[in-house]
């Protein structure tokens, strides 16, 4: 392919010792492919770059051919080349750049570093005043990988989020306060679309994603205040030249969009590109060809040798409030709850008689209310009354430092990386009234209430893609037992600080014997949701809940076999020992419409046990058993069906 080049181009390639064989070899180098965001594809698609902007490539075929892109880049990097590159002036990335045009080396400084420093290709340097000024203004000294804890309030946040924090210095060389450093995050721009459109587009790659930069205080107030999520910062072991590489690659990717796909090409996946540019020996993205769960990408980074220098956790606003509450006496706590219901009583108190901790707790509560109020930024501060704050300003005593009281509330504070692996499979022996079966179950993500809860939200379930198949010992046939695309449950304990709803929602296809028309068994599609209340009687160990559920069921075979059911549910979670968990539920569904031969209602008792057997191998084994007793009754006679299963599960 080099024969068609001009003489000057051929001469340039000779000067830098690049011939066709070397070009072909270098085009396959993993670091080159990583810088191009190239990815191996499976299923109906050829290998290509994740970048979806022409501005990311110097060759018109750059997205599909790393070789052509390599050649185009090498030629463009010739200091004698007249090629000038501009920032995109239209579309979404026009926000970042200006109207400057520069030599190719200045648009792709990380590629330049790679060629010259990593590969030793002797390309003379060209002056890049804009890039140099930007790096200089950044005054970057270190980089942390930040993990925002999962948040069940929004599907987008349910797996958590990762981004980078660039530590900076001030112009006088003093280290910047953390809040004044910068966050670098990959996010999707969804314009003014409605909520329903967002789901479809987010899943199918219709939103352009890009690398944003924010002053860190924006991210802190967004996550710890508004969302009330903990932030975990992992300061990475990168030296100055590696920090520069991250910024050089950030400069490159800031000219491009990358279509956002919620499951695989999401925030946590793309941020790894910046770290791989810094550390060519780190293979991060290649592990995430199917899906990229933020927690897993975090673990991938932490598993690199000597990756982390220091870990810091920034507590959420509600966690700080709960920790502060432990500093109050019983009387002060009573006072807090009285104020909480009657904020106007503030005027009755005067400073000398008050403890600063009490006023601080009230302030945290008011701040939480203010940031949750959905008002414009301009108006939020006004929601925290000066009356209350003046009182504090006149009260003697120092406020407790959130870091010093961290953990006092007893609320679990396990580091995210201690969480069990995302996937799970299980093998069970299942006994029914009709047959005995072997069941194999596989779950792609992530957690259920019988799993070890360290690093996850207590009393929660987040199931994505669970599949179960079975083999009947009597019938000698395989069949599908269940297929659950998604199911979420959050049995948040009710307390006076956060009066929350316990809820669950989800659906899938299940094997059942409870449609009269089923001979032995049939598959029904079910979508179920419920809401109610949960009370934690012994912290981490005993929880009761009660809910009202509605379920919609249908079998494919008979179009008119569709029914709607509703009814109450009660349940208990108990952990008698650290490795033994029990979850029992009893629910009752009444169905409409009432067909003559169909059940009018159904009562189900379900009790599951898990025994965690850690330490046997690097994964987590659990002995898991489940007893399920189901009763259904018809208008004329009752019919009881019983199932029992026992088996092993393992996370991997």
């Amino acid at each position: 392919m080099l024969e068609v080049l001009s003489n000057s181009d051929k001469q340039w390639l000779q000067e830098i010792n690049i011939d066709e064989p070397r070009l072909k070899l270098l085009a396959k180098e993993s670091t080159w492919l990583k810088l191009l965001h190239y990815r191996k594809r499976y299923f109906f698609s050829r290998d290509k770059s994740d970048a979806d902007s022409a501005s990311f490539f110097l060759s018109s075929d750059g997205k599909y051919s790393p070789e052509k892109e390599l050649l185009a880049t090498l030629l463009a990097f010739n200091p004698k080349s007249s090629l000038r590159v501009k920032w995109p002036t239209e579309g979404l990335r026009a926000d970042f750049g200006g109207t400057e045009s520069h030599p190719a080396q200045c648009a792709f400084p990380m590629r330049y570093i790679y060629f010259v420093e990593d590969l030793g290709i002797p390309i003379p340097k060209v002056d890049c005043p804009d890039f140099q000024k930007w790096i200089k203004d950044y005054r970057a000294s270190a980089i942390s990988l930040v993990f925002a804890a999962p948040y069940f309030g929004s599907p987008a946040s349910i797996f958590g989020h990762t981004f980078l924090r660039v530590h900076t210095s001030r112009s006088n060389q003093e280290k910047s306060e953390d809040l004044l450093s910068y966050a670098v995050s990959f996010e999707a721009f969804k314009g003014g679309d409605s909520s329903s459109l967002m789901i479809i587009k987010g899943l199918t790659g219709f939103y352009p994603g890009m690398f944003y930069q924010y002053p860190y205080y924006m991210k802190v107030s967004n996550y710890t205040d508004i969302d009330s999520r903990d932030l975990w910062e992992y300061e990475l072991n990168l030296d100055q030249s590696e920090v520069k590489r991250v910024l050089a690659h950030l400069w490159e990717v800031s000219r491009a969009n990358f279509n956002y796909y919620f499951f695989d090409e999401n925030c946590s996946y793309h941020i790894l590109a910046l770290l791989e540019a810094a550390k060519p020996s780190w293979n991060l993205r290649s592990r995430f060809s199917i899906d990229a769960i933020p927690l897993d990408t975090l673990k991938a980074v932490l598993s690199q040798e000597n990756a982390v220098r220091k870990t810091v956790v920034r507590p959420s606003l509600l966690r700080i409030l709960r920790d502060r509450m432990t500093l109050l006496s019983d009387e002060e706590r009573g006072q807090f709850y009285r104020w909480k219901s009657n904020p106007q009583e503030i005027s009755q108190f005067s400073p000398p008689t008050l403890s600063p901790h009490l006023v601080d707790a009230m302030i945290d509560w008011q701040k939480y209310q203010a940031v949750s109020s959905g008002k414009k930024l301009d108006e939020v501060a006004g929601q925290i009354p000066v009356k209350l704050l003046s009182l504090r300003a006149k009260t003697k005593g120092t406020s407790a430092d959130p870091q010093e009281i961290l953990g006092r509330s007893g609320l679990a504070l396990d580091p995210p990386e201690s969480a069990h692996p995302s996937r799970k499979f299980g093998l069970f022996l299942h006994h029914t009234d009709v047959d005995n079966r072997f069941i194999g179950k596989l779950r792609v993500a992530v957690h259920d209430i019988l799993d070890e809860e360290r690093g996850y939200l207590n009393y929660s379930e987040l199931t994505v893609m669970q599949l179960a198949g079975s083999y009947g010992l009597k019938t000698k046939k395989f069949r599908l037992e269940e297929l659950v695309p998604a199911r979420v449950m959050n049995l948040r304990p009710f307390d006076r600080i956060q009066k929350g709803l316990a809820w669950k929602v989800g659906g899938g296809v299940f094997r059942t014997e409870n449609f009269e028309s089923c001979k032995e068994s049939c598959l029904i599609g079910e979508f179920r949701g419920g809401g109610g209340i949960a009370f934690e009687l012994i912290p981490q160990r005993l929880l009761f809940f009660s809910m009202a559920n509605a379920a919609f069921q249908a079998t494919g075979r008979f179009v008119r076999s569709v029914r709607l059911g509703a009814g109450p549910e009660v349940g208990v979670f108990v952990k008698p020992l650290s490795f033994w968990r029990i979850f029992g539920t009893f629910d009752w569904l009444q169905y409409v419409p009432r067909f003559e031969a169909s059940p009018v209602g159904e009562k189900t008792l379900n009790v599951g046990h898990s025994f965690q057997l850690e330490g046997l191998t690097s994964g987590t084994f659990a002995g898991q058993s489940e007893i399920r007793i189901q009763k259904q009754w018809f208008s004329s006679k009752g019919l009881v069906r019983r199932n029992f299963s026992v088996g092993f599960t393992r996370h991997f």
Partner: protein
Amino acid sequence: MRIKGILVAVFSLFVLSTASFAASTGDAGCGLGSVIFQKNSKLSQSLALTTNSTFLNQLFGITSGTSNCAAKGLVKNDAELKYYAEANLPSLKVDVARGSGESLVALAQIMGCSKDRVAHFSATAQSRFESLFPNDQITAADFVTQAEHELSGVCQSNGA
């Protein structure tokens, strides 16, 4: 499809930037004040799947854009106090009342205090809470004016 997406985006960007300028009076602020501080869990956004924050999405064009206050993702030096106050007023109000807190320490740094002057700055700010926040209608711009008036010289006084 893509063109439509780009058009929607560019239109939104246009609307956002004009809206932010329309909201300010006199000395144009950084336009952050008109952004809605919105929790993820609001029912209307409950099905948002694509980003982790609808709040931050509205900042597009203001944070990384070539606006008054930021260029290439970095806040411009002369806009630093304005930008910070607009984004942090709730935390600042609280920290000044307490005489401590990260937001107040960051303010001290922005206003030129070296580390050893921060405690003095914080205590002074607390003692001047009522001048800095006389009422609940104080805007970020008001606060910046007051802060410059009340706190500018504090870092330098008593030498160092």
